[in-house]
């Protein structure tokens, strides 16, 4: 009995600990001003103008479209290029491929800042500033190592006999890969889509430098400019932040089963 009460209160405490920041953010966002009131105090009236102002001042409608576009195209490319690369790396474990594999995976530890300035110069030279394709290629590249790592490990768990059986039926490598292997990768693909999706959606380090025009800016960039501009109106800022985290949260709550399962598969198989 006591054990159950302890357990139940444990659950409540953990639950509260993880809802408090959102509670504070939400109450801040619906207050007209926070002068003289505690951040903890529930709002006395709903002041929704903050949301409208934040939506327009931070150009969030445009940013949302950009985010969706950049994330979607990046994910398609990541899955395609990543899974394709992993097949030979998992199946043909020669010295060369071991080296290539290590090379690709080691990119995971390259600090983005260490390459930022040369990268920027390069992007300008190839006329990639403020274009979707440049930021997409960069984001894809920096997610590829993780993606290849997860795919390679997953493919290693698929019995080789399957490939061999397919070969006997006359498949060549490409057909074999797309018809037989790729469909089997569904669980890890969904993990990768979720993992990389989150990271790309939230990217700030690259986007802030390569997307300098409002037409192409994503939520994180628009929002950071908005925050530095309206720093003294924390209620407005809170409303902006809340709008900023809303799309991802909605997707997450709607598809949470897949999120947690997908991530778990990625973690354990990886």
């Amino acid at each position: 009995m006591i054990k159950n009460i302890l357990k139940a209160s444990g659950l409540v405490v953990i639950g509260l600990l993880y809802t408090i920041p959102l509670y504070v953010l939400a109450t801040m966002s619906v207050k007209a001003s926070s002068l003289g009131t505690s951040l903890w105090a529930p709002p006395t009236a709903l002041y929704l103008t903050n949301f409208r102002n934040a939506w327009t001042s931070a150009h969030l409608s445009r940013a949302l479209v950009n985010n969706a576009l950049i994330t979607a195209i990046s994910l398609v490319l990541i899955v395609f290029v990543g899974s394709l690369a992993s097949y030979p790396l998992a199946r043909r474990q020669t010295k060369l491929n071991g080296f290539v594999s290590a090379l690709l995976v080691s990119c995971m530890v390259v600090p983005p800042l260490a390459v930022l300035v040369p990268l920027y110069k390069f992007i300008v030279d190839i006329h990639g500033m403020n274009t979707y394709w440049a930021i997409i290629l960069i984001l894809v590249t920096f997610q590829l190592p993780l993606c290849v790592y997860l795919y390679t490990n997953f493919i290693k768990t698929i019995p080789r006999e399957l490939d061999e059986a397919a070969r006997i039926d006359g498949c060549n490598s490409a057909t074999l890969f797309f018809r037989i292997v790729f469909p089997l990768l569904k669980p890890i693909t969904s993990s990768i889509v979720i993992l990389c999706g989150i990271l790309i959606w939230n990217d700030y380090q690259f986007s802030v430098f390569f997307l300098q025009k409002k037409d192409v800016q994503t939520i994180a960039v628009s929002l950071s400019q908005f925050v530095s501009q309206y720093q003294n109106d924390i209620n407005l800022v809170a409303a902006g932040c809340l709008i900023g985290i809303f799309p991802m949260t909605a997707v997450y709550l709607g598809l949470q089963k897949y999120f947690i399962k997908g991530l778990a598969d990625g973690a354990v198989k990886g």
Partner: protein
Amino acid sequence: MHSRNSRPGRPGSRIKKLKASVAAGSVNVMYLPALAFVSVFIFYPFFRGIYISFTNWNGYSSSFRFVGFEQYLTMFGDKNVLNTIVNTFIYGLGSTFFQTVFGLALALFLDGNRRIKSVVRTVVYLPVIISPLIMGYIWYFFFRYNGGAVNDILALFAKEPVDWFANGRRSVWIIMLVNSYQFVGVSMVMFLAGLQSIPPSYHEAAVIDGASPFKRFRFVTVPLLVPAFASSVIFNTIGGMKLFDVIVATTDGGPGYASQSLSTMMYDLYFSKQNAGYAAALGILMFAIIVILSVMLLEFFKRKRVDL
């Protein structure tokens, strides 16, 4: 190239042919696009970064000169670099420690099918999907001196407000905890998956042998969770060592240089100090540290691995 038409012949010889073709390596073409991506957008700029680390380039002007190893030599005598490396390790290893310990505790506690548990799991995982930058802003509102949420609580107990981020050491720990708090869900999910992959029969067998719950945990659960430990430790270490967004949103590396990580220090050197050469050298150092650390961790876990 393999023919798409099946030809007559014994299966055995086809398998041999297949093995020959895989051995021939034409299948390797499939990783060329990925290699092209990383070569263009990671290797090329990375090597240019090394080149820059041997110059005194200020980050924007067209003239600079070679200084050899000067930047690297300066690094050893630089108090700020030493302090920043210590911070980076606190961010990396500290977060890893908290995320792993609490991630495991949460996984053990929240494992199960009860609805309430799954709701709490969802809530604990929620911050993972929130942009770290926004998370940093939220926690900044908590630890502000004036009207911060934490000082509001102190005021309830008639305590003087504390200027949380005014002390460098304290800031480092707060930022580390904020990062752990946000990403503990990742470790939790890794451990949950690990727990669920342990066949119940193992535990049953241990019960029959008369093992205590602690012994079952120590000798059945923990060894079988090694892959989950490995993922949790390696991912969180690399992520924590590269920490950037949260620091920018809370202390911006301050006061002074006290809460900087190698990432924010590089940013500061590149853009505020006009010392791109030094920043590049620091980038190489950071790269080296992370590579060595990851290799060590990988080796460590490889030895501990137990296959089911």
